[in-house]
């Protein structure tokens, strides 16, 4: 188990180091999420008070849309020079490839969120009044679940020629329960309502995260096997 995590770190470190050098994927993701916010502010007038109600949903929309870009890249980049086969023939457990990719993707999406969510609040003139720690917790739980399932399906979709188109079609239906929970929990926290109401949603997200982490972790080697 320890070996799996240290190998996962090596792989995540390679991906993140690579990203740090050219900053291409992250840059695209940030620009894209800002553009989504921009388009939304044209679609719904930000000066209208009613629009405040869609903020929780928007947070998750920009996370998913920009996250999809990064997820698409994460395994496509391994196809160049077939380096995924290099990883497969290395003496590591296939699950560590998955874990490493989850770590790298999570870091990237979190980095994008750090920029895009304040931009969202800024452009929609939204004053944050909820409890910050709870907000972070909900954000972390939702993002983690998204990345867990997304990374797994990205590895699956990369086998197809049209993987960029296939990934959202596979991913979004599976994300629906997580997104319902995440949006509801975020709404409750942003409206500064009783945290107790959000508890059941947070529990649902935690259960979803754990269940799918376990399932993806064990099923990943079947994706890697190939034939």
């Amino acid at each position, binding site marked *: 188990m320890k070996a799996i995590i240290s190998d996962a770190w090596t792989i995540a470190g390679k991906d993140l180091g690579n990203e740090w050098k050219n900053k291409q994927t992250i840059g695209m993701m940030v620009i894209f999420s800002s553009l989504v916010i921009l388009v939304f502010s044209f679609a719904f007038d930000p000066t209208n008070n009613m629009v405040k109600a869609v903020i929780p949903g928007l947070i998750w929309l920009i996370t998913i849309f920009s996250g999809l870009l990064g997820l698409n890249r994460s395994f496509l980049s391994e196809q160049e020079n077939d380096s995924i086969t290099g990883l497969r023939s290395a003496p590591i457990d296939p699950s560590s490839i998955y874990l490493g990719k989850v770590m790298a993707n999570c870091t990237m999406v979190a980095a994008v969120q750090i920029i895009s969510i304040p931009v969202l609040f800024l452009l929609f003139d939204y004053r944050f009044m909820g409890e910050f720690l709870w907000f972070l917790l909900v954000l972390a739980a939702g993002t983690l679940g998204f990345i867990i399932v997304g990374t797994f399906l990205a590895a699956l979709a990369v086998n197809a020629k049209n993987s960029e188109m296939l990934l959202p079609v596979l991913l979004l239906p599976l994300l629906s329960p997580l997104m319902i929970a995440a949006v509801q929990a975020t709404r409750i926290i942003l409206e500064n309502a009783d945290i107790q109401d959000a508890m059941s*949603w947070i529990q*649902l997200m935690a259960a979803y995260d754990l*269940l799918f982490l376990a399932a993806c972790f064990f099923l990943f080697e079947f994706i890697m096997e190939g034939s």
Partner: protein
Amino acid sequence: MKQKSGFIDTAMFYLLIPMVFAALYFVFIWSPVEKFMGAPQKIFYFHVSCAWVAFLAFFTVGYYSVRTLIKPNIKFHIHAGISAEIGVLFTTITLLTGMIWGKSSWNTWWTWEPRLATTLILWFIYVAYLFVRRMEGSWEKIAKLSAVFGIIGVINVPIVFMAIRWWNTKLHPVVFGDGKNQDGGGIEPPMLFTLLFCIFTITLLYAYLMRKGIEIEKMRHAVKKAKNKAINRLAG
């Protein structure tokens, strides 16, 4: 072997014809008209049966996906695929009948009633599953990938249902029940009988379609094999 399976198919076919007519008779003539909803309530029998088969078909996909992963076998792969195709059909019927019923009883085409909404998500998962199966590559590879997706999809369905139900009860406290007919108080025995008969008939129809679909798919594989062989021989 060939003869025997042909016999089962014929028997099922001739059993299905009277059963379908009997089901129609029970639904439209024999069973009483519901007091509050009137004649449109009749669609409920088909709606529930199709919904049952839609979910059954999906769990069949899950079952054969697990078996494919344990021991790759083209038979399991075909079974899962046919079940998914039939599942799309029944999910679509469920959605349509649900919408018609919704229009007649709540005067709206769509409600986010948990069962109906779950069916919608199920439809999307089915379609995604069929997309995975359309990938290029050897059948072993596709079998593995689609089986993995099938399993993840099956795990997801109960969670979707739960999430939508919670979401719903938070939004509107009282949801007009559908499906098991909880709204009328008790269900009258003739109605229950009709419902069970319908469910049975449609399940049998599913089994029959499954067998036929598998047969056709196997033929398709046989033809492909023969074609490849011929091409290889021509190529030298």
